[in-house]
């Protein structure tokens, strides 16, 4: 178990609103090993970003986090004070955000922002920190790194800024990196480069990586394991191979039907889509959250909550009352 970088049990995030309490994240369990990439997939509003912020303890002030177990590198960081957490952030656990254009402070140079991170967590001279920052910029593929240190974020393109963000996150060689849609705001060619870079750096530094995305193409490229989130819950979890080759949960299966497969999907045939809408998560909710959009839904689905289960002990768990056999046949009973 020494390889386990992150272990989370029963994470819940509630946001009080005028109309009631929004149960944004509900009972999420996660674990990531060293060198492993866990992709959390789901559509907008399913709670994946809040999950990542909750792990960093950076939730918006009005959101409340409940969590049973939160271990980083085998050590519980659950009871940490804000001060202790700030020693962990940027040091043992780093985060890369979606918007490289706005995630760097416009008023300070790249060098300034990198050096302050290093000097916050390491006892280094300004020159030594500057040298390390420069080397890290080179590592993420930035040319003329020494010169870049003196530049301001607005002088860099989006792709470069995201590279800078990645370099900044890696400075203290964290055990775990959480990347929240790191490529969504970039154009497609840059996306591929950044993903490749993340993958390389991850194996070089032997880190755990949690990658949050709604892009199944990204997942297919990079994931070791996948957790599919729907309406605040994990509805299916397994290795990337299991999820792509043998999806079980009707929602995951629906998602897979939405992707065109080269050579398989015929030109002119409409892509799959999932009818209906995500249910409101305000107030209490009983039963399967996907039931209203599911063609396999029965009355029992709505009567009690459905647990995430792994009946065959194959690490592929799903949150549905139906048997694996039935789901594998596409619900034809």
């Amino acid at each position, binding site marked *: 178990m020494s390889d386990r970088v992150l272990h989370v049990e029963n994470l819940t995030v509630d946001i009080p609103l005028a109309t009631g309490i929004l149960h944004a994240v509900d009972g999420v369990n996660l674990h990531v090993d060293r060198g492993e990439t866990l992709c959390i997939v789901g559509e907008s509003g399913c709670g994946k970003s809040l999950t990542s912020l909750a792990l960093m303890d*950076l939730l918006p002030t009005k959101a409340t986090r409940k969590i049973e177990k939160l271990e980083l590198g085998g050590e519980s960081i659950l009871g940490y004070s804000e001060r202790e957490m700030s020693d962990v952030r940027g040091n043992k656990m780093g985060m890369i955000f979606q918007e490289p254009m706005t995630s760097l*402070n416009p008023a300070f140079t790249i060098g300034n922002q990198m050096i*302050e991170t290093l000097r916050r967590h390491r006892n280094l001279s300004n020159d030594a920190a500057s040298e390390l920052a420069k080397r890290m910029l080179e590592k993420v593929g930035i040319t003329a790194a020494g010169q870049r240190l003196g530049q301001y974020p607005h002088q860099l393109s989006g792709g470069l800024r995201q590279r800078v963000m990645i370099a900044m996150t890696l400075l203290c060689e964290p055990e775990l990196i959480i990347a929240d849609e790191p490529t969504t705001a970039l154009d497609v060619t840059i996306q591929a480069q950044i993903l490749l870079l993340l993958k390389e750096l991850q194996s070089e530094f032997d880190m755990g990586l949690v990658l949050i995305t709604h892009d199944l193409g990204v997942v297919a490229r990079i994931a070791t394991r996948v957790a599919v989130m729907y309406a605040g819950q994990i509805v299916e979890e397994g290795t990337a191979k299991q999820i792509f080759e043998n999806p079980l949960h009707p929602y995951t299966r629906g998602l897979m039907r939405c992707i065109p497969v080269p050579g398989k999907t015929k030109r002119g045939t409409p892509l799959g889509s999932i009818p209906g809408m995500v249910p409101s998560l305000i107030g209490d909710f009983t039963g399967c959250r996907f039931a209203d959009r599911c063609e396999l839904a029965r009355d029992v689905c709505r009567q009690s909550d459905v647990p995430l289960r792994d009946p065959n002990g194959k690490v592929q768990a799903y949150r549905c009352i139906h048997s694996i056999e039935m789901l594998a046949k596409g619900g034809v009973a």
Partner: protein
Amino acid sequence: MLYYTLKRLGLAGLVALTVSFISFGLLYISSDPAIAMAGETASDADIEAIRQLYGFDRPILVQYFDWLQRAMSGDLGKSYYFRTDVSALIAERLSTTMTLGVSAITFAIVLSVPLGVAAAIRPNSLIDRIALFLSVMGQALPSFWFALMLIVFLSVSLRLLPTSGSDTWQHFIMPTIVLGYYAAPAIMRLTRTGMLEVLSTDYIRTARAKGLRPRVVLFKHALRNAVIPVVSLTAVQFGFMLGGSIVVETIFALHGAGFLAWESITRNDLPTVQGLILVFSLFYIVLTFFADLLNAWLDPRIRIN
């Protein structure tokens, strides 16, 4: 930064030139200056003589450049009322106004920026409410009433401070409070709004995700970006204090430039009014120039394209 400074400087020069032309023109917009100078009982021949003596019969542009040349060498003409040099008159009054203006704007900044920041850190908290109360009060209280109340309490009842005059630094305390408190609400609200906005930005989240201490996040990463609009506002407020502190100067009998402006307007002392308008406008221009430079230093996006 050098390019930006030169560009701003050129712009400031152009604005100054325009302003000088307008303030020169004031003399002609209001009335015929020869008639005004000659007085009510003068005959047509007298008026014509004055017109030629002072050169009012020449083309207006010639007169303007002549005036401008003299203004640049510090000669703003003679006051109709005091019969002395306008520039000497203004210089004498300006020191009082400057002392008051500088201390009032300092008081306003020291009061409102920390309160604005504290209010933004904890919105809707007690401190936020106190700040809101203070700023609504500052906005709503007429300066003259507030000034009189201060005199009643601090001078008359408690006998702590002198009521009026400008002899010692104690004379400036109450005027500073009144004038500074008048300017404080806008600065406070803008600091609070700016700070709230900056605190919700992505780069503040990044700063926290890097593990930076709250103090560093707040004062290095947030404040620097939040004060940029505050700098411009403060410059305008300061310019306003130099020219518009007539009420405060009158109540506390501080004979500054604002008071002189009011006197000169009621006396139809056009050269003095003209000189004051020129000086006040130049102050505004200089202040705006420095505010722009300060902002460019704070925000690299302004100075580097």
